[in-house]
């Protein structure tokens, strides 16, 4: 999976989870707060209606209480003549009856709740109210506010005990009854309508409510059971969710102001919030994906650059560089990468130079840090090869010609030496020194040494054919213990071998006739299938004893020769 895909997936997950959480938590929370706001509106509306009602009732109550103790009403009650009572009340209650508006009426009841007098001219409408009031007021000695549902209408009755204060005796009750007038429906900002009605018993009245609403709200409150003085319920009216808030205004019989409003607006608001949330989420997701792509691109491009550059370096192209796009981590990485490439190129260059100026095998060992700079004793084969008659050969030649000839000659011999696993130790003038067994030794060092010597002769002979200036070489080989190591000053070191065998090889080389190979006993002892001819013991400078030496004529089984390493 690409980095870009992973980043996109992560961002999508984050956005989806955040959206889901917002929807799961925010949706209900938003709805709750909308509902609460609506509830507050309902409660405020009911409070307002109740305040207005209280003001009205307080004024009426005061009037009714005053009249219920006034001498005229007491006198009328004492007369036992309903007509007198009715007439007196009609006069005395004139103002309250006018205030109550159409349908206002009054009722006089005796202590048992029996009717004494009704408003004249309104007996038919008043009698059911009086009959309903009777059982409710019986035994009471306090002013009460009662709401009665009679004939589908609600009557608000302020009932005061009629008391003869002259003897502190209650004579009965006076009730001023006014038809309940619900506040006008209120249009809410979301175009829904808030209706305030009155719940009496198990019915809801007023507020211009359709029958379906009244019955639905009434049954919802009924189902909600006994509630406190303030309660709210949710119900469904004709498929529309509604909320109803009730506040008790009178107990026994229970009367509650009820405010009803639709929750459809709330649902719409929540829905619209959800839609906006979704859109915002989609925008966030889109932006996130774009940013993810940009980030991924800004990450993947340098990575791709470095990847291909690394591949190029793997193939040996140390010149490749990656662009540094910024100063961030990747930019630093690119910088380091480029520095690494430059370092590798430099090392490669050093290696090439080293390979040229020193033997590749030695260079390798040196680079690998395997060479013991202090020098070690080991069995090594040493081959010296020089040109016979070099002075006379070159005395009429230009120096560049000499160098060109030497270079051609040394290149040829170097190749042969490398072909046989030899290490070209150094060139000294027309002489080339090759070692076998240092720095790395092998069991067939002597065998390869012998083959190498003969191969040099053959190669030179072959090169000489058709040459205007044939070069004739002599070769001396020795095998034995020498000191191998890096020698020289602290500033300049050479890996080389030193020892008597080296000198012996040099002596044998100088003794060897043109195009022949002399070997010492050390080589002789170590080679197989060789054809040699023992020479008479030789005197050699620096050697006190006579030296056994052999001329190597031929060596068999070249096929079996294991070339330890192959140079170009």
């Amino acid at each position, binding site marked *: 999976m690409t980095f870009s895909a992973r980043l996109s997936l992560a961002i999508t997950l984050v956005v989806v989870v955040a959206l889901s959480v917002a929807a799961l938590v925010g949706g209900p929370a938003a709805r709750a707060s909308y509902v609460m706001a609506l509830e507050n509106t309902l409660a405020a509306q009911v409070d307002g209606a109740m305040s207005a009602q209280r003001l009205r009732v307080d004024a009426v109550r005061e009037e009714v209480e005053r009249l219920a103790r006034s001498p*005229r009403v*007491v006198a009328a009650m*004492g*007369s036992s003549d309903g007509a*007198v009572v009715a007439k007196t009340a009609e006069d005395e209650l004139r103002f309250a009856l006018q205030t109550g508006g159409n349908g206002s009426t009054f009722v006089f009841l005796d202590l048992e709740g029996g009717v004494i007098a009704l408003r004249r001219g309104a007996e038919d409408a008043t009698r059911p109210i009086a009959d309903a009031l009777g059982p409710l007021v019986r035994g009471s000695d306090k002013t009460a506010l009662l709401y009665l549902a009679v004939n589908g209408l609600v009557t608000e009755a302020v009932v005061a005990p009629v*008391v003869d*204060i002259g*003897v502190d005796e209650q004579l009965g009750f006076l009730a001023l009854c006014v038809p309940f007038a619900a506040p006008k429906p209120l249009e809410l900002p979301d175009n829904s309508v808030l209706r305030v009605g009155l719940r009496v018993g198990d019915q809801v009245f007023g507020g211009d409510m359709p029958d379906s609403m009244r019955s639905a709200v009434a049954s919802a409150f009924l189902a909600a059971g006994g509630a406190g003085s303030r309660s709210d319920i949710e119900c469904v009216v004709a498929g529309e969710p509604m909320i109803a808030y009730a506040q008790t205004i009178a107990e026994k019989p229970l009367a509650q102001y009820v405010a009803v409003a639709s929750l459809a607006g709330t649902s719409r608001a929540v829905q619209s919030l959800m839609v906006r949330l979704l859109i915002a989420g989609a925008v966030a997701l889109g932006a996130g994906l774009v940013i993810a792509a940009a980030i991924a691109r800004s990450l993947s491009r340098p990575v791709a650059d470095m990847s291909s550059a690394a591949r190029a370096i793997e193939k040996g192209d140390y010149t490749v560089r990656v662009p540094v796009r910024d100063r961030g981590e990747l930019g630093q990485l690119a910088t380091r990468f480029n520095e690494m490439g430059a370092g590798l190129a430099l090392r490669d260059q050093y290696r090439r130079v080293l390979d040229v100026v020193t033997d590749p095998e030695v260079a390798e060992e040196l680079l690998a840090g395997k060479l013991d700079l202090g020098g070690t004793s080991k069995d090594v084969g040493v081959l010296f090869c020089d040109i016979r008659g070099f002075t006379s050969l070159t005395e009429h030649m230009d120096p560049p010609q000499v160098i060109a000839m030497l270079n051609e000659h040394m290149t040829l011999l170097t190749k042969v030496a490398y072909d046989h696993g030899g290490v070209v130790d150094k060139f000294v003038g027309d002489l080339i020194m090759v070692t076998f067994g240092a720095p790395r030794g092998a069991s067939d060092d002597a065998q390869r040494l012998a083959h190498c010597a003969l191969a040099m002769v053959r190669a030179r002979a072959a090169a000489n054919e058709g040459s205007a200036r044939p070069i004739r070489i002599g070769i001396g080989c020795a095998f034995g213990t020498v000191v191998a190591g890096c020698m020289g000053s602290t500033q300049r070191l050479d890996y080389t071998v030193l020892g008597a065998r080296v000198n012996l090889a040099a002596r044998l080389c100088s003794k060897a006739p043109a195009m022949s190979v002399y070997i010492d006993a050390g080589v002789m002892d170590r080679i197989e299938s060789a054809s040699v001819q023992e020479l008479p013991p030789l005197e050699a400078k620096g050697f006190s004893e006579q030296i056994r030496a052999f001329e190597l004529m031929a060596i068999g089984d070249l096929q079996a020769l294991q070339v330890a390493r192959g140079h170009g």
Partner: protein
Amino acid sequence: MCSVWKPFFTRRSARGIALFTLLCGAAAAGRPQGHAAPEQTSPAPATPAQATPAQETPATKSGATIRGTLPIVSRKRPQVKEYGAQPAITVEAPDAAMSVVWIGSGFAPIDGSSVPVQKIIQSGYQFRPEVTVIQSGTRVSFPNNDENYHSVFSLSESQKFDVGRFVKGEEPEAKAFMTPGVVDLFCDVHDHMRGHIIVADTPWFARSDSAGKFEIAGIAPGKHSVRIWVGPRRKLIEKEVEVQEGQFLEVDWSSTEGSPGK
């Protein structure tokens, strides 16, 4: 439920009066009109002493004498409103509770001019006396002795009237009470004021003293109805009594039990 106010004269009681009148009418018709009880001769305000002392020899008068005790119901403390008048008015205590008894019925109203005018004075923001008993036909005046307006009205079945408001010195004309019954008096300026006139269609009546004692003399022999008005609760009790010529009858009618008045 004895504390409940009962309508005074209902159709049934009216029928009872008619029956009684039939039974006793003939005997009564022969009696001199306006046979005055002792208190009728003494000027108002009436005092408990108006009841004839028991020491008086009953034999000096014709007819029977009944002496006894009426129920006295202690008055609840009446509620006195704050009238907010400036200067503040001082409402005096109402009279002690008294009851009234009258024996017999069916006498025609007397000629009001032949007897003194009874006065019910409005004084100390009370009707004085609170309870007055008169024979039908007697006139009553309502002088105002206070420094404020008073009014007198009644919505009682037997006598509805309203003399309106008046101040001291604006005494309305004396009013004759012809119909028997209890007339409750109110003042629509002062809600607490209560007065009662018991108009009896008989000359044999008495108002008790505050202990309930009373005495009525000169009662014609025979069987008579007895009505007791228990003030101030306005309970009415009906009884019957039979007396012989010259009899001195000692009765205890202090129980509020008994056949309730109708």
